[in-house]
Structure formats: structure tokens, C-alpha cells
């Protein structure tokens, strides 16, 4: 009798890293271009993957172009290592490249993420791969892709500034939550993918390389280490990260880390640190296990590690 297992192709029948040699070379060429022109969206072919477009195929392809048996890969989805999306991507990457998987930010060589950056600082040599649903930051002000590309070429970001100004006029503050438009190396405005505003400053003058890849939209871009990433702000109205200073994590008792808000039936809310790898380590440490906690981007008083970068 035929079973599902007997119908399934053996995984060693695939190319190493799932992608064929042409796909890998193309991705590698485009990644090099992306790093050479920080923030510029490089078009790429974006192959079919065994998950649907929009579920992280861009990030997955970038990771597969990088990973090998010597890699340690961590995958998170909204900060969590254990969500279905993250767990499946991690298992797939490990099966196709023979890499080790880890949950420790300090240990990983590649961190693929959907919509979060880790709380612990990434170091030189580590690569953060962000999954991007919509790479074109100008789309909300210019839906025509060809014209948006010309606007990038002309460095014409007037409409972007106008959009932010209108937010100030109508609501008294910037209401853009995720994908906050940021100027890279003083030249291109990019969408940092839908990471919260809390995470945007972590890309500025970082030690690590960030690769942002949009599989459905077929665009890849990057932020090298030691590169200016400046969230758009006015000289008298500053970019602000999320105000969560009176929230305390239910699991660890920590404050001043990015939190998930969990609604309760009585109308109140609990809070938990969104970066589960970091929260788990905090708990292990409390229980006396030998774990290494890395330095975080925001200290225990909520101060960002680059002095004066966040203005108030």
C-alpha cells in the first residue's frame, strides 16, 4: 500500500540548500549588490519555495543562500522561536543545509526573523535576515512602482515627509507603528520591514549585517554594519519608540524590553517579553542555570545604547 512516506521524495534528492545552483548564484550576486548600495531595493528572481509567498519565502531564500553545515541558525516569528512559522522554517533550513539550530541570539550565525529584532545585541559577523512583506516604503504615497523607483532615483521623498506631517497635524504624533520609514546612509529611504519602532534604532551603526528580503515582491536590500539608519523625524518633532515604560513582564519581572500585550477576560492585560529566547534565558538565570546574557540594546532603565540617538 502506498503511504504518505513512500510517496515523499527523499530529502537528499534535493540540491544542497534546496535552491538550485542558478538560484543560489543569482541570490548571492544580488545580496552583494544590496550590501554595496545600503537601503537600495535590488530586484531578484525569487523562486518558488515549499511555503506560500508571503510566509517568509524572501527571508528563507536569503538564509538558504548563506547557510551551510558550519552555520547556527535561529528563526523567530514576532520574537518567538516556537511559533508554527518559525519552527517549520527552522526545521526546513536545518534539513536542507545540515546547519545547527539554536534559540540563543548570542550563539547564532544567522538569525532569520519575522517582524522583530532580538533584545540582545548582535555582533560582528552575525547576519540578521528580515522577512519583508512590503519592501516599497513609498507605496502608501505612490502606488505606481515605476514612479516610486524614479522617486528613489531622484531622492525625492517629499511625499513621505508630507505623510508624516499629516499624521502630526491629524493625531498630534507619528502614528506609523511598524515599518517606520528610515533613511539609510543618508541616501535611500527604506522600510525596515514591519519591526516595531522599538527595533528600528537597533539597525543604526550596528555591528551586524542586516539583509531584508521580500519573496513575493522580489526585492532584496541590506544594511551593512556601521551604517547610518535614521528614522525620519522633524527637527522639532522626534521619532519615538513605543511607550511601554510602566509594563512589567509577567514571566521575568523585567521592564524596558519590548512586550507582548495579552488581553485578559476581565478587560485588563498582562505583558510578556516578546523575545522568548531572551526571556527564557532570564528565567534560567534566575533558577541558577549557567546561561550567558548578552548586552541589550536598551538597558534596565530603558536607555538606548547609542547615547543621544533617540531624542526626547
Amino acid at each position, binding site marked *: 500500500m502506498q503511504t504518505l512516506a513512500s510517496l515523499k521524495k527523499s530529502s537528499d534528492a534535493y540540491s544542497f540548500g534546496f535552491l538550485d545552483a542558478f538560484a543560489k548564484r543569482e541570490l*548571492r550576486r544580488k*545580496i552583494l549588490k544590496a550590501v554595496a548600495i545600503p537601503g537600495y531595493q535590488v530586484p531578484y528572481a525569487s523562486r518558488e519555495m515549499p511555503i506560500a509567498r508571503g510566509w517568509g519565502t524572501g527571508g528563507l531564500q536569503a538564509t538558504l543562500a548563506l547557510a551551510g553545515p558550519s552555520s547556527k541558525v535561529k528563526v523567530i516569528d514576532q520574537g518567538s522561536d516556537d511559533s508554527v512559522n518559525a519552527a517549520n522554517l527552522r526545521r526546513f533550513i536545518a534539513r536542507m543545509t545540515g546547519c545547527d539550530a539554536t534559540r540563543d541570539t548570542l550563539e547564532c550565525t544567522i538569525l532569520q526573523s519575522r517582524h522583530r529584532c532580538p533584545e540582545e545585541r548582535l555582533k560582528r559577523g552575525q547576519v540578521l535576515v528580515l522577512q519583508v512583506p512590503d519592501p516599497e516604503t513609498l507605496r502608501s504615497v505612490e502606488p505606481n512602482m515605476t514612479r516610486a523607483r524614479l522617486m528613489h532615483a531622484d531622492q525625492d521623498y517629499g511625499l513621505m515627509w508630507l505623510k508624516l506631517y499629516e499624521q502630526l497635524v491629524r493625531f498630534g504624533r507619528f502614528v506609523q507603528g511598524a515599518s517606520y520609514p528610515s533613511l539609510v546612509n543618508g541616501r535611500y529611504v527604506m522600510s525596515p520591514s514591519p519591526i516595531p519602532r522599538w527595533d528600528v534604532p537597533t539597525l543604526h551603526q550596528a555591528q551586524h549585517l542586516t539583509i531584508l528580503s521580500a519573496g513575493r515582491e522580489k526585492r532584496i536590500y541590506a544594511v551593512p554594519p556601521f551604517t547610518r539608519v535614521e528614522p525620519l523625524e522633524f527637527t522639532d518633532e522626534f521619532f519615538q519608540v513605543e511607550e511601554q515604560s510602566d509594563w512589567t513582564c509577567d514571566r521575568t519581572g523585567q521592564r524596558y524590553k519590548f512586550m507582548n500585550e495579552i488581553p485578559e477576560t476581565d478587560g485588563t492585560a498582562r505583558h510578556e517579553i516578546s523575545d522568548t529566547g531572551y526571556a527564557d534565558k532570564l528565567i534560567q538565570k534566575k533558577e541558577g542555570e549557567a546561561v550567558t546574557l548578552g548586552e541589550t540594546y536598551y538597558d534596565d532603565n530603558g536607555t538606548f545604547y547609542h547615547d543621544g540617538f533617540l531624542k526626547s
Partner: protein
Amino acid sequence: MRVPEFTQSEEASRKTFLALLQATSLPGSIHQLSQASYPENFIAIAEALIDLETTFFSPDPEISQALERTGARAVDVSEAEYQLWPTLRQDDLEVIKTASVGTMVYPDSSASLYLGCQLEQGLPLLLTGPGIDGEIEIQVAGVPESFWIVRNELTSYPLGWDVFLVHDGQVLAIPRSTEVNIGPRSH
């Protein structure tokens, strides 16, 4: 669970690519390629990156011949996306000047130049820009000094060449985003 085979060529391509990636993201720093001597080092770079979707140029007959099997098209300097120059002479500057710096709409269409040289000796260059913590001083021999003058004249960010300096098994990148000052650090 068996992992797909990590063939020798996969391993070499990945190692070469990671060296180029780290070099590009940290301009001025030296990284190890998969092959340590001419012409295998240049051929390994080509095999990691180019195929029938790309164009190339190399004045070196041995490299050109080896590259034919990649399926990439051999074209003139003015058209070639990937250029492999094991030695760049003063006379070559008039030709290399015609290499593409890309367009404002598609700056990624510019040429990538892989130049043979000797690192850590010769002309001092002071680099600043993305990927560099402050500034970094490097030394390059075997590339005419006027190449850097031409490079600086033609670079108008985001337009410009991505230059990779290859010394045996070592590579150092100077992407277009890097500002190159000829001469040592002034104190």
C-alpha cells in the same frame, strides 16, 4: 533524516561567497577565499557568481577560457557586469574607464571589478563609509595609483564600481559606498 549532499563545488562556492559578503559588508577587512593562488582564485570567484544570466570580461586568456563553461557571455569592458583583471596595467585604464557605473534608476547594473594585487604593501588608502567603524587604512600594491583617481572621479554614489582586491587567497572589497582617500592618514 539525510541532508542533501554538500558537494565540493557547493562548499567552495559558499566559502567564496561568504568571503565576498563579509568583505563587502566590512570594507577594508581581509577575508579568505576558497582558492589560494592564481588563476584558481579568480576562477573560483567566477564560478560562485556568474552563469549564463551574466556577462563577463577578462583580459587573461586562461581565465576567459575557464569561464566559457559557466555559460556566461564574454563581452567588452563597457558591457561586462563581472570583470576579472589579474593584473591591471597603466595602459588598461583607458579601457576600464568605460566600465558601467550603473544608472540612477538601476544602480545595481554597474560593473564589479575583481583586481589582482598585493595587499598590505604599497600605496596607502584611507577608507571611510558604511561598514567601516570610523576609518581604516589599507595598503595596495600592483594597482596603478591613477586607477584610484579614475575610480574616485567616476564614483558618484549610488553610481560606481564595486571593486574587489584579490591577493592570492585573500580578498578585500571597496564598494561604491566607500570613500577612498589616496595617501596615509594625516595626523
